[in-house]
């Protein structure tokens, strides 16, 4: 790629505009913490320049630069609409500098909340998949049980897990255990259903070629049926994961004493919309990072698929 293609891009132009915009006169009463925006932009641009210098594939570079162009563009609009022209309600929409400043100030608290939320999700989610996948394999493999179980799991899975909360609260000691229980249910049914349908859809020819190798029952289930149905199983796992995040953050907004949902809810109750926006952004980042890692895992386990 030429130097022009690498460095003379709209992204870099937007970076310069973003910096320039910061020096317009402010029209709000509070300090808009402009230096935080400048630091953030500088960090982002450093990353952009590094990536532009070293990435080999043009397509990958384009995607990366386009994403940063959007981020810069958004920050420009955000700065203009708040600090510079005061078009939005000041109390509800703090300027970006304040949000960045609040983020750095609260980072310890935020990490604790992330840890708490992820801990609950991980526990409920792993428990559900570890039970649902083997169970789904056995049920799907035994034809008669599987047929009945498909209907039962469809019925039970169609009940939104959030309505089990009253039972969870009545039976379980802590908010945390109720959350784990709800996430367990949110993950268990879709994973069980997708595992069973995966098993039922394994091609007869695959099963025959395993049979003629004279494989034992356990090998058949875990070395043949499991990998053959893995693409389907992942559909259920994906569904479980996204529902888990929705449920957990909602639950945390209702009754928790920590967690990301709690962070957002607590501060919005006190009218602290800077922290509310910090919380929203952090939740977005956490979900994106988790789904990115999950996708990596999925791709590596299914790399044999065309």
């Amino acid at each position, binding site marked *: 790629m030429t130097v022009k293609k690498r460095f003379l891009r709209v992204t870099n132009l937007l970076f310069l505009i973003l910096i320039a915009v910061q020096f317009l006169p402010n029209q709000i009463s509070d300090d808009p913490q402009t230096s935080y925006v400048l630091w953030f932009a500088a960090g982002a641009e450093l990353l952009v320049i590094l990536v532009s210098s070293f990435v080999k594939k043009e397509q990958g570079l384009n995607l990366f630069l386009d994403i940063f162009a959007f981020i810069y563009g958004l920050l420009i609009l955000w700065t203009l609409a708040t600090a510079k022209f005061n078009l939005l309600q000041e109390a509800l929409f703090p300027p970006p500098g304040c949000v960045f400043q609040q983020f750095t100030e609260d980072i310890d608290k935020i990490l604790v909340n992330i840890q708490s939320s992820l801990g609950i999700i991980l526990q409920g989610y792993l428990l559900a998949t570890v039970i649902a996948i083997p169970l789904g394999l056995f049920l799907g493999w035994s034809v008669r049980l599987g047929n009945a179980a498909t209907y039962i799991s469809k019925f039970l899975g169609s009940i939104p897990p959030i309505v089990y909360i009253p039972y969870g609260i009545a039976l379980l000691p802590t908010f945390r255990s109720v959350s784990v229980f709800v996430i367990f249910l949110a993950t268990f049914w879709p994973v069980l259903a997708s595992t069973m349908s995966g098993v039922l859809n394994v*091609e007869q020819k*695959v099963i025959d*070629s395993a*049979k*003629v*190798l*004279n494989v034992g029952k356990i090998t058949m289930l875990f*070395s043949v049926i499991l990998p053959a149905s893995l693409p389907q199983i992942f559909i259920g796992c994906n569904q479980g994961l996204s529902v888990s995040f929705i449920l957990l953050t909602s639950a945390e907004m209702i009754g928790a004493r920590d967690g990301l949902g709690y962070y957002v809810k607590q501060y919005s109750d006190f009218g602290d919309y800077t922290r509310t926006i910090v919380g929203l952004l952090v939740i977005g980042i956490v979900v994106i990072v988790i789904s990115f890692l999950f996708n990596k895992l999925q791709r590596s386990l299914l790399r*044999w698929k065309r």
Partner: protein
Amino acid sequence: MSKIEIHNLTVDYTEKNKSFTALKNVSFSVEAGEFVSVIGSSGCGKSTLLSILEGINAPTEGEILIDGKPIIGTGTDRGVVFQHYSLFPWMTARKNVAFGVKQVKKDLSKTERLQIADTFLDKVGLSDFKNKYPSQLSGGMQQRVAIARALAMDTDILLMDEPFGAIDAKNRTVLQELLLELWEGDGTQEKKTVVFVTHDIDEAILLSDRIVMMSAGPGHVYREIPVPFDRPRN
């Protein structure tokens, strides 16, 4: 006593309350080390016959004896190559072969199994492709892997169900020669007993010692013809 004895095999299918007979009173035998082709047009029951030899299906009447003992289900004495999907798509060529070896030789270590896999992949000329997944291999290469696996399992009997039926003519010739070369070996080992299903008469003549011709309505053995040509034939 022959290696494989097929006695009065009859197979009835029931489909949507209609029953029909796929095989009727099929009898023939295969000697140890013999290469026998079963040929016939589609619908003559040759694949049904092989599926019973494989142990995937059971006959309605009659029985098959291997070394004098009736077969019940699948067994480690028979290696199988199908026309399609013999390989597991989630395993590399090497793992596919090693997985087959593991089912017959449970006491071998993982390293030993992989070594055997490498040896046989080398024999079929796929050393450079051993870490590829089936989806990354051509149809001919996939069949080479399937043959490597069947041979690596070192069973007495090889059952092949139109293994080259979906391969283009040029590659088919190459694979036929490879199969013969591997079957004949270097003379130090006992030859495998092969039952080879095909609808291609030229293929049957090139490969086999004897040809069993089947015809439909219901499937039965029509003629058995020894192939009178000396080897090598090309």
